[in-house]
């Protein structure tokens, strides 16, 4: 009997999982004993961390986009046709065109999406860099910026927890390069009572902010933006005025998850070690769409894909698998235009940032190019 694997979502997690499976099950794919079908919603694959560099004019938009088909092993079938319903009781995914994809194993990798509309006034009053068009708009606004107060604020939840901090450090260097640092006040705000979710990173950032003259305020959860008066108001009852506002929008999972009754706000209930969807042993979940209390990051999606591909391969070839996810996350953190640091942690090991260096910055720049090999399952 042919085993049918369906992967929904052609971003980082879905693509890595599909390519690893194709490599592990090469023989079975050739012999027709396994079929891998990927369902995604657009023909292009975008390297999202590149948005940060687009905002500062350091990368061109076309440099971070590739055709999804070219990233996938040729034995994987690609359907650019969004999933509109996932019916786990009948093992079928239904797409917009009406096609039914029956599966023996399902991998959900539909990621997360920004929902700026959840914050009144966001569209009119704020910039962000979490989508291509928004990053280009912010780049244009920064090019024209001649001084004033730039407020950075952070919605909850959001992917890539280090991006707001990276943005702030890079903004400092950008303004310095443009000779307008002395005419600008950078004001960073954060939802919890320190500068970053990771305590060692927060402690490490404080003296650096002070040395660079970056102001900050914590316990700051934006509730609404008054675009006309250029003011952000918070859940905590405070308000802050700005000349340019860069706000990380809150995120939700893909609508298809909520609409299929698979988890509130689009976050799928996921076993933290086995990465299975609760109650369904043949349904795996990778990446941003899990409800796990860990960073929503490309590295997380990648490490989870390693486990899911290993588990599915062993289940198909041997009947069972012992592979488990240990909560591993790795992040390079830009600390300006020419230095970066690096953290890794898992469920049991807390993070410990290394001192920033030029070498780590070059590694991050290098990874920005190597990502495509990562997506192909080579790296």
């Amino acid at each position: 009997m042919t085993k049918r694997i369906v992967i929904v979502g052609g971003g980082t997690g879905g693509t890595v999982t599909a390519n690893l499976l194709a490599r592990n099950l090469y023989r079975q794919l050739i012999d027709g004993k396994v079929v891998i079908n990927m369902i995604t919603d657009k023909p292009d694959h975008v390297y999202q961390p590149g948005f940060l560099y687009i905002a500062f004019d350091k990368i061109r938009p076309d440099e971070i986009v590739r055709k999804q088909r070219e990233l996938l092993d040729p034995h994987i079938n690609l359907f650019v046709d969004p999933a509109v319903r996932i019916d786990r009781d009948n093992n079928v995914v239904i797409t917009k065109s009406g096609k039914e994809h029956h599966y023996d194993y399902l991998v959900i990798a539909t990621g997360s999406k920004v929902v700026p509309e959840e914050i009144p006034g966001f569209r009119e009053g704020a910039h962000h860099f979490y989508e291509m068009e928004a990053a280009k708009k912010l780049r244009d606004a920064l090019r024209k910026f001649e001084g004033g107060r730039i407020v950075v604020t952070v919605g909850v939840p959001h992917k890539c927890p280090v991006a707001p901090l990276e943005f702030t450090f890079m903004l400092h260097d950008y303004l310095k390069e443009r000779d307008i640092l002395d005419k600008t006040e950078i004001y960073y705000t954060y939802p919890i009572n320190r500068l970053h979710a990771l305590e060692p990173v927060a402690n490490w950032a404080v003296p650096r902010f002070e040395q660079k003259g970056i102001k900050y305020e914590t316990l700051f959860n934006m509730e609404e933006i008054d675009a006309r008066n250029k003011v952000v108001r918070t859940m905590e009852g405070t308000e802050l005025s700005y000349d340019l506002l860069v706000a990380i929008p809150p995120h939700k999972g893909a609508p298809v998850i909520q609409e299929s009754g698979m988890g509130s706000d689009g976050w799928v209930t996921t076993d933290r070690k086995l990465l299975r969807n609760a109650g369904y042993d043949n349904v795996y979940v990778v990446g941003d769409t899990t409800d796990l209390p860990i960073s929503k990051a490309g590295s997380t999606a990648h490490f989870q894909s390693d486990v899911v591909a290993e588990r599915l391969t062993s289940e198909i070839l041997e009947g069972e698998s012992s592979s488990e996810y240990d909560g591993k996350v790795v992040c390079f953190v830009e600390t300006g235009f020419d230095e970066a640091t690096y953290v890794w942690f898992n469920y049991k090991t807390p993070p410990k940032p290394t001192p920033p260096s030029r070498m780590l910055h070059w590694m991050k720049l290098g990874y920005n190019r190597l990502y495509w090999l990562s997506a192909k399952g080579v790296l």
Partner: protein
Amino acid sequence: MSELKIDRTIDARGSACPGPLMELIKGVKSAGVGTVIELLSCEKGTTVDAPAWIKKVGQEFIDMEEKEGYWRIVMKKIK
């Protein structure tokens, strides 16, 4: 506290990042008024940070207890 009906459990044990307080903020934002939420955390700091934030944003802090190797904090979304 044991007889109180919990509507939503946020298990943030082992969460280095985004961490228990951020998980709680996320939970409170998406919950309806009247929801009773329990937060589980292995970080001792949460026993100070979470009640302080709950009070600061005008929500109801109900109780806190130490369990084996973790803490349980209960609150209600009242607005």
